């Protein structure tokens, strides 16, 4: 069978940032009606390849052809007009505008130069409907959780293809890690949508660190390593083991190691107890105990209140009932400072808005929590600071390993590691991790999970939130199950606890 002509072809793509060669001579092609996975470790250059294609970054070398014609976009809107719709890894939306406005921002339907609000809302609703989503388009975007916001960004991209918003003008759809904060159900919805568009002849570029998803939905894949192309394969021709080997340049066996590791048994005395802690509109009052050296995992669907629970235990939101006791002392939880002083650390799931300061360097971001605890008068001595930072850059394999790099310029996965490093150097008693492996590549994911295991062995307690149930089950001694913003069960982990069992518990909403 003769291959059709690629709709998009990139050859010899080079992109340099000061001190970093992000892409060196990468070739990439995309065929109509295919779903094409772009794979690689954190910092391999996936997002950069997308951004030079759509004109966010200028090209330092190489050529791009779209439908046989040579093109070079100087702005994302140029690429959009040519039929390339993109959802970037860091989604740019306006939280205080409505969903409908966000979907149509920049291309609002107008008549006599005035925006037709009714039509805008109607078309937004139609588009959302067409994609099988249940979202009120008149509500402000910020009223929805991150995952829904991500879906809105996808709707927006699909809709930008054509002036009438029907999406019929989109020839290429680019999705940079669209599934990182989605639940299984939404992922399936997204896949259905992708397959439908593929059926209409749209070429889709899909980035994800979930290899299962790649095998589920993709036809072809291109693998990058350190900014170079290491191969293009049909998905059916390469199995997962081979793929991982291609991505990281060596075989990966540590994942297996993790699979059959034993949870350590020496869980100590109680560290934290929450009695009837709750917050109206956040989560119903709950009781929870976390022991020294214990890993408590939280399982639940999107919007079930996992993050809300974690935020109350950190004082990020103030509980309006109940009391929290840490190490025998009651903590007021009127601000994060109280919890931090008691030895609690919290890595937010929104690393961009609630975690990192993008303008500051890796070093400054890593030192921030420690420094805040010491106050401004006592700076961390430079020698100690540099040593700590170097140690954690190495331990977490942050790339580039340059403490002077601005965090905003790091790849998504590496930003996540910086956030983790920031709290680890404070040596907390309780580490709250909300989706710590989001956006992290498969090798680093295993590393972080191993880290959690060894930290808990050393006596640190961990509250672990992850969308993947397997991940929660693998690490946790106790699993808290949430449903509809209520902690409905606490299960001691054991052989009989399986993902299915958890899902059943969620479904039945059985009470503790």
């Amino acid at each position: 069978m003769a291959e059709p002509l690629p709709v998009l072809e990139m050859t010899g793509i080079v992109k340099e940032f000061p001190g970093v060669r992000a892409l060196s001579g990468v070739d990439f092609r995309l065929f109509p009606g295919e779903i094409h996975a772009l794979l690689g470790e954190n910092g391999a250059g996936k997002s950069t390849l997308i951004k030079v294609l759509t004109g966010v970054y200028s090209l330092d070398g190489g050529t791009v052809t779209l439908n046989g014609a040579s093109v070079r976009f100087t702005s994302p809107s140029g690429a959009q007009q040519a039929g390339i719709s993109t959802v970037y890894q860091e989604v740019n939306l306006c939280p205080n505008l409505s969903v409908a406005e966000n979907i149509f921002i920049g291309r609002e339907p107008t008549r006599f130069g005035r925006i037709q609000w009714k039509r805008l809302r109607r078309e937004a609703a139609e588009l959302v409907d067409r994609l099988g989503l249940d979202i009120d388009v008149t509500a402000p975007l910020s009223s929805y959780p991150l995952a829904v916001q991500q879906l809105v960004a996808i709707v927006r991209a699909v809709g930008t293809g054509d002036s009438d918003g029907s999406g019929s003008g989109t020839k290429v759809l680019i999705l940079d890690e669209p599934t990182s904060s989605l639940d299984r159900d939404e992922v399936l919805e997204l896949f259905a949508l992708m397959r439908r568009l593929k059926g209409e002849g749209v070429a889709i570029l899909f980035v994800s660190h979930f290899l299962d998803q790649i095998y589920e939905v993709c036809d072809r894949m291109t693998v990058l390593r350190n900014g170079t192309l290491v191969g293009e394969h049909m998905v059916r021709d390469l199995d997962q083991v081979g793929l991982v080997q291609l991505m990281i340049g060596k075989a990966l066996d540590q994942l297996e190691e993790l699979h059959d590791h034993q949870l350590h048994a020496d869980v100590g005395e109680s560290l934290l107890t929450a009695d009837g802690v709750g917050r109206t509109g956040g989560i119903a009052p709950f009781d929870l105990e976390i022991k020294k050296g214990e890993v408590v995992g939280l399982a639940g669907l999107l919007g079930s209140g996992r993050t809300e629970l974690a935020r109350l235990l950190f004082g990020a939101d103030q509980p309006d009932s109940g009391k929290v006791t840490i190490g025998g002392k009651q903590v007021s939880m009127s601000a994060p400072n109280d919890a931090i002083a008691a030895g609690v650390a919290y890595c937010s799931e929104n690393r961009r808005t609630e975690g990192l300061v993008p303008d500051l360097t890796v070093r400054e971001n890593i030192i921030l929590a420690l420094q805040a605890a010491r106050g401004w008068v006592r700076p961390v001595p430079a020698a100690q600071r540099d040593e700590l930072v170097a140690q954690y850059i190495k331990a977490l394999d942050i790339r580039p390993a340059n403490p002077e790099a601005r965090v905003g310029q790091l790849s998504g996965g590496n930003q996540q590691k910086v956030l983790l490093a920031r709290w680890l150097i404070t040596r907390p008693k309780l580490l709250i991790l909300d989706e710590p492996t989001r956006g992290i590549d498969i090798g680093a994911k295993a590393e972080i999970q191993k880290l959690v295991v060894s930290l808990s062995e050393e006596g640190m307690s961990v509250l672990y939130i992850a969308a993947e149930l397997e991940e929660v089950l693998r690490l946790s001694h106790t699993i808290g199950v949430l449903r509809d913003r209520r902690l409905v069960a606490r299960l001691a982990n054991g052989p009989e606890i399986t993902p299915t069992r958890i899902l059943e518990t969620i479904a039945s909403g059985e009470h503790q």
Partner: protein
Amino acid sequence: MTTTPRWRELTRHHLFWPVAVLVLLLLVNVPFTPDFFSVKMTDGHLYGSLVSIVLFGSPLILVAVGMTLVIATGGIDLSVGAVVAITGALSCSYLSDQADQAAVSGVLLAMGLGLLAAVVCGLWNGFLVARMGIQPIIATLIIMVAGRGVAQLITDGQIITVNSEPYKLIGGGYWLTLPFSIFVVAAVVAVTVALTRRTALGLLVESVGGNAEASRLVGIRSRRIKIMVYVFCALCAGIAGLMISSNTSAADGNNAGLWIELDAILAVVIGGTSLLGGRFSIGGTVVGALVIQTLTTTIYTIGVPTQTNLVFKAAVVIIVCLMQSPKFRAKVFGAGGFGGKRGAKQAEAPADTAATPETVRTMEVS
């Protein structure tokens, strides 16, 4: 364009553009004032255009340095001009009531009184912004407007003149052949740099301005930090107020420091500190203030008619700001021109077609 790596490196330095503009502006004066760069010694005092630029620019540098920290936290302080007036008014009116205006103790007391008033203004601003959560531009507008009234009250609507040698020193005196105010400015700049970079204050300020919510969640006491910077800013304005009233030996509640807040904000921006907050550069601000002062001087030396000098000033400021924008340079001089890589803010957020960077909050979903 031939660009060597070293040149590229140089153009990327954060002080490159402010300094380049400053040098350019200075050179513009030479055809009009051939001895522009010469410095003469008369009566043991150094005189010359360069010396006067620094001398007359001193209050602006002080105010702008304080403003830098406020802007770095993501705020702004419009009240500095009024604080200049209040400080001058209070000091001069106290001093003018003294029997012996030349007594050093009296002069010090007068200055202390003025600075105390400035600190109170700063506390008020900080309280409104940090405690009450009022938008900085509104919060500081209160003193901007009411402050001049207070200054008028203090001076009874008159221009108070003083006649005091020691008081004259800070804004009009000489020491070691140089204007004394240069030493004051140098001291304040040195203290500010030490205060922000030797301690962790600079880092925490940049963190609060760079991402307020993240800073809260990391346990930074942002309120305290904000109050501190507003007080510091007012204190700097207070010293500038002393300087201005000392230079003229008079307190003019109406005109002292009029519009200095705008010049100061401009100086900060020219110095490379973003109005959105975050990274700041004291060195950049000092250069920025010198640029503004040089511009004012240039307007006089090249004889721009008084009616049009504000327009002229505005035009130059626009050009300066454009020159500093990497996007503009890329458009005008071609990609890679002057080796100017994209600036930090641009590089990281994919440009959205509709929304300006200020309105878009970047959310990472990954």
